[in-house]
């Protein structure tokens, strides 16, 4: 943790800058520089960082806990300790408190009652909506798409709805390697192997010479590119677009309610 001029601020349990609109404004810019790459502009969640506008957060409750997490990171997650992500200057204690003031200023209370019905959403997820053919929640479901157990706690309702209605607009992030700048995205791939087998699936990972693919039957293929007859990638997601005629707004709200109920446990 950074020490120095502002170390007196670190000892506090509560943000010494709480409720200060100027501090929140300064925190907004600090947030953009230090946090937005993962947590998104406006803290509304990005590819790998959760939405921070929810009042109820998975890892933190108090200001002191939030300070601790920003300073030291969260082991086992992509959340790095302050100043260790290699991009930009780390934050001083004062700047961390400004960011906390900013995040608090954004927080929206969860609606008293969920818009959808979680039980019905679960039925849809595992039933008529066919989500579980490709997505797993709490150990049950398919493997082709991203695992969704925690998604309801880390993404906004709007973000989840957008990924269902328009999955190609922003491809989900997959494998994140420790030393790599960019995570793998859920790109779809069509290829023909050297012996003429046609494969359609998603890229689990890729480099200039190899590609690791899961096909629609969840078979994993480990391939060398120079041995393929053809290899085509697409940013058109394999996930179908769920238009309202396929999945009603109400049904979608039910699924969101289910994912939120699981993801915020």
């Amino acid at each position, binding site marked *: 943790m950074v020490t120095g001029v502002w170390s007196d601020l670190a000892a506090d349990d509560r943000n010494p800058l709480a409720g200060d609109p100027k501090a929140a404004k300064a925190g907004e810019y600090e947030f953009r520089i230090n946090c937005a790459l993962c947590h998104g502009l406006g803290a509304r969640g990005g590819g790998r960082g959760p939405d921070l506008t929810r009042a109820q957060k998975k890892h933190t409750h108090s200001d002191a806990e939030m300070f601790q997490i920003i300073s030291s990171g969260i082991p086992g997650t992509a959340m790095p300790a302050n100043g260790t992500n290699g991009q930009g*200057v780390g934050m001083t204690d004062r700047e961390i408190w400004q960011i906390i003031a900013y995040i608090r200023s954004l927080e929206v209370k969860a609606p008293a009652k969920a818009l959808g019905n979680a039980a019905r959403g679960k039925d849809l997820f595992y039933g008529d909506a066919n989500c579980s053919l490709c997505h797993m929640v709490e150990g049950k479901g398919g493997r082709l798409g991203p695992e969704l157990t925690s998604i309801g706690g880390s993404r906004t309702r709007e973000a989840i709805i957008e990924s269902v209605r328009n999955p190609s607009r922003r491809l989900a992030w997959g494998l994140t390697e420790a030393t790599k700048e*960019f995570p793998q995205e859920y790109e779809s791939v069509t290829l023909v192997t050297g012996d003429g087998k046609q494969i359609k699936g998603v890229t689990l990972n890729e480099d200039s010479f190899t590609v690791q693919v899961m096909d629609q039957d969840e078979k994993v293929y480990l391939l060398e590119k120079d041995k393929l007859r053809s290899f085509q990638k697409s940013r058109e997601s394999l996930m179908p677009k769920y238009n309202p005629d396929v999945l009603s707004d109400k049904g979608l709200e039910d699924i969101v309610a289910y994912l939120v109920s699981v993801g915020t446990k």
Partner: protein
Amino acid sequence: MRGRVKLNRRERGDLPQSARRFAFVLIMICCTCLVLLHPAGAQVTSERLLNSAKEPQNWLTYSGDYSGRRFSPLNQINATNVRSLSAKWVYQIGATGKLETTPLVVDGILYATGQDDRAFALDARTGRPIWLYQRQLPSDIRPCCGRVNRGLAISGDKVFIGTLDAHVIALDSKTGNVVWDVAAADYRTGHSFTVAPLAVKNLVVIGASGGEYGIRGFIDAYDAATGERQWRFYTVPGPGEPGHETWEGDSWKVGGAPAWNTGTYDPVTNQIFWPTGNPAPSNRGEGRAGDNLYSNSLLALNADTGKMNWYFQFTKHDEHDWDATQVPVMIDSGGKHLIAQANRNGFFYVLDRTTGKLVSANAYGKITWSDTKDAEGRPIAKKEASPTLEGHTVCPGALGTTNFMAPAYNPQTSLFYVTARDQCDIFSTAPQPYEPGHAYYGSAYFPSEEARPYAGFLKAIDPATGQVKWQFQHTSPTWSGVLSTAGGLVFTGDAEGNFIALDAASGKPLWHFQMGGAVYAAPMAFAVDGKQYVAIAAGSAIYAFGLP
């Protein structure tokens, strides 16, 4: 045509004619069979540094020689046999964070640096360490962009590193013991060193990092023997100095213009060419009206005095963090003495290195910030490219078309090789007060979704035309530098951990090896006992490759 290196008798070391002839023959024999000329631990004299071409088995400076070409004359590993290249050894540093070091090799010993100002000497044939050094850094340093170091300089019996707490240190090259240690600046005001210094004559030349904190940038030269500072060139001129009028009010005091990448040296004119970085705050021009000299410039300094002979500013009044700190490469072509730079702003510049006048400027990546040039041929920024309060998209992004990745120039193909990326950013600006030691960007930038996925390339540019002759597209953008060799090869690394050899003429990939960690460093080549190696840092290790 002027010879590239023409030395008088004094500079050669005043050997009698017969001894010189004998030495010449010996050198020729050694070059051919790659036998060690000097025993391990021999002094690296300034004559050896000047004549590095005569000992191709060694890699004596950050870029391999004073020209900045990162070209190895070794050709044992070549386009015909590179397919059988294999790993010879790996040295694990055992630390986290990026490795940006280029090793030096002198007479069978490899010297390199690691995270948190580690330095070490290895047996270049086996990777076994001879000594290890780690700086005891203060706990409150806040270096921008990783706790990195790009390498050392060697001269006499010492190696030199700049540290993250803004010291310059000389280590004994046989033991790693500290010989001298001088504080160049106060790290608490955001100063640091990440650059590999350059040893020139009796001097160690080094440039400051800290453009993110509103430092006043400088380039220093220290006496290699004693550590006594011989000169300092402030990259932001003070009151009464030419160029001071290009800063509004007191903005010069915190004007940035760091000098965090290694320059080159022309012994014929005794000039050091050193590039400089962004003005501060990096993304907010308000409050520093003017061109902001000598930010984002190439400086030609007298090596003995640090006095400036000429400057060329690539991006005037920069608001996009486009440091011009890329290694400038000296190229002699058609009787012209040129210096070329693939700039972060997306243009490839060729200058006359005698006068500093622009010869050509051509885009080599995706750019939207300029569509016109001034009378001298310099790209001019569009007004609407300036960051706004709400933010808007400009290409290249803040990371640039290229960045610190070392380029290479191959005199055999006459091509300039550079790592490039196509990425656009949303640039927004905001008032930010200066506080010593605090981030001073005046802004934020954020990758724009418009250009997703971001593309990374190795590009081969013909300096005569400025056109890209071939390009190799990586799976994702890489931070690796490039090495070119007389074996008709170009070596580079990628973000996925591959070390790749390509045909220097065509760009065709010929060989690769998976190192298991992303590359943020540049490769180099050396030979020991007549065997050529190619080495690169990846993940948290140094790898050396050779033929079976």
